[in-house]
């Protein structure tokens, strides 16, 4: 008799394509192998459906059939590591980067990254906005040395492709017109206000500014990075917008 841990290990492998040989399955009118197939299908379809729920825009871009094949390939290579199926699928952006059949759609991985990030932003812990009175009391000569906290949900993504435009285009139930994929790179800020995820484009300067601040570097370093990539970067206005939108939520020296 196969001890329980070995039995489960072996059956688990069989669900993911391993041989069912040696599994003590009763026949009872229907062969053990055929019975096992029900569980194989359940496993595959549960994970495929989970991916469909997370990546509707990717599915829209490639079509249902292509998506199903790609999802099965992903599932075969990436077992689920959590009992919560909502955790599944985080490596899809990376997977798509090197997924041969999708090579003609080089933006797919970045669109997937935007979709995954949206979901993470939607459920990240809440935050309190910046204490503006405390900020106003920081002496002028100390401002450049300030470092900032950002809301846990906020993330900036940078892509060679117009990922936000693609995402928005795919939200239309009946997309009309054409999307110009050659419109170049887009940088997207995802944040949450109340329960809604907000997405907006960042200029190259804003992106650099925010990235440096989010790494925990000083205000001065962030300004320098922004001005390097965007000559006319308006520090005061952009910083105020990031505070107002509750992207930057605290500061420390």
């Amino acid at each position, binding site marked *: 008799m196969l001890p329980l841990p070995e039995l489960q290990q072996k059956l688990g492998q069989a669900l993911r394509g391993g041989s069912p040989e040696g599994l*003590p399955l009763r026949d009872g009118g229907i062969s053990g192998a055929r019975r096992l197939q029900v569980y194989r299908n359940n496993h595959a379809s549960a994970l495929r459906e989970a991916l469909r729920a997370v990546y509707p825009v990717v599915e829209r871009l490639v079509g249902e059939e292509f998506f199903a094949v790609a999802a099965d390939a992903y599932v075969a290579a990436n077992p689920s590591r959590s009992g919560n199926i909502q955790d599944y699928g985080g490596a899809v952006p990376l997977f798509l980067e090197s997924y041969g059949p999708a090579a003609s759609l080089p933006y797919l991985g970045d669109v997937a990254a935007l979709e995954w990030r949206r979901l993470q932003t939607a459920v990240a812990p809440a935050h309190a906005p910046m204490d503006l009175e405390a900020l106003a009391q920081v002496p002028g000569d100390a401002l450049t040395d300030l470092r900032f906290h950002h809301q846990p949900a906020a993330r900036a993504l940078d892509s060679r492709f117009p990922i936000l435009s693609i995402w928005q285009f795919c939200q239309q139930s009946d997309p009309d017109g054409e999307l110009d994929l050659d419109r170049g790179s887009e940088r997207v800020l995802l944040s949450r206000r109340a329960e809604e995820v907000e997405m907006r484009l960042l200029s190259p300067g804003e992106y650099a500014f925010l990235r440096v601040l989010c790494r925990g570097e000083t205000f001065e370093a962030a300004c320098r990075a922004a001005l390097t990539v965007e000559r006319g970067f308006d520090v005061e206005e952009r910083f105020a917008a990031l505070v107002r939108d509750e992207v930057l939520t605290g500061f420390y020296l």
Partner: protein
Amino acid sequence: MDTSVSRHEPIPAQAGIGLRAPHLRQVLEQRPGVPWFEVHSENYFAPAGAAVAMLDAVRRDYPLSLHGVGLSLGGSDSLDPQHLQHLKTAIARFAPALVSEHLCWTAAGGQHFHDLLPLPYTEEALRHVSARIVEAQERLGRRLLIENVSSYLEFEHSSIPEWEFLREVAARSGCGILLDVNNIYVSAVNHGFDARRYLEAIPAEAVGEIHLAGHVAKDVEGTPLLIDSHSQPVTAAVWDLYAYALERLGPKPTLIEWDSELPAFAVLQAEAAKAEAHLGARHAAAA
């Protein structure tokens, strides 16, 4: 005046509905007269966001049951401390009147299969899963209801009938039983046992809840195999079995589950009304 549901009010012996994400908004807007709701615990593990905020609002007006699918109580990997912590946090947040899980395993070797996999019904498995339920109950600080699952295969070395196994798990671990009447029916057909005999073996006082759902029949090489799809109305045969269950067990909180090809909420309400009619007959008989 505080009209919110008492945090400790039990689930009534009435027909509740399994609440799924696409219906959350409608329920909050229309506040339908449903005696209680059940949700899948894992869908509300996130610390924030629209889903948990909506469930908070549902909870203010309705008794709630949390039903888990991912704890792998019958598994051989150690219980996932993170999963337990998430569940504990959800229990503290939503103050559910019932917390349930399944008599099955869902993971092995660190891989999760997201399906309710059957145990071999052996003394070894009985000892193992009973101890795991005790451990989970201790770590959660809550008594669990444990649900019998549908199954499509049996193990050659299973030596204990499933009904005895379930009864014994409850006796050894102190857990309650969530009796899924549809699952009993599905497994009875798939493995050729008598569903009524199963029900007769279950001690009424251990049963805290009943589940009802729809299944589909497949023809496999000329032999019928029932699949617990949760995509259909409850079948006539399962309603009959449910009536028999109520006769044996007395009225119990009963839940209509529907998970795939989810219909309009009104369809679920109509299913719940059917269950309510059965429960009403039992309440009347008991009076």
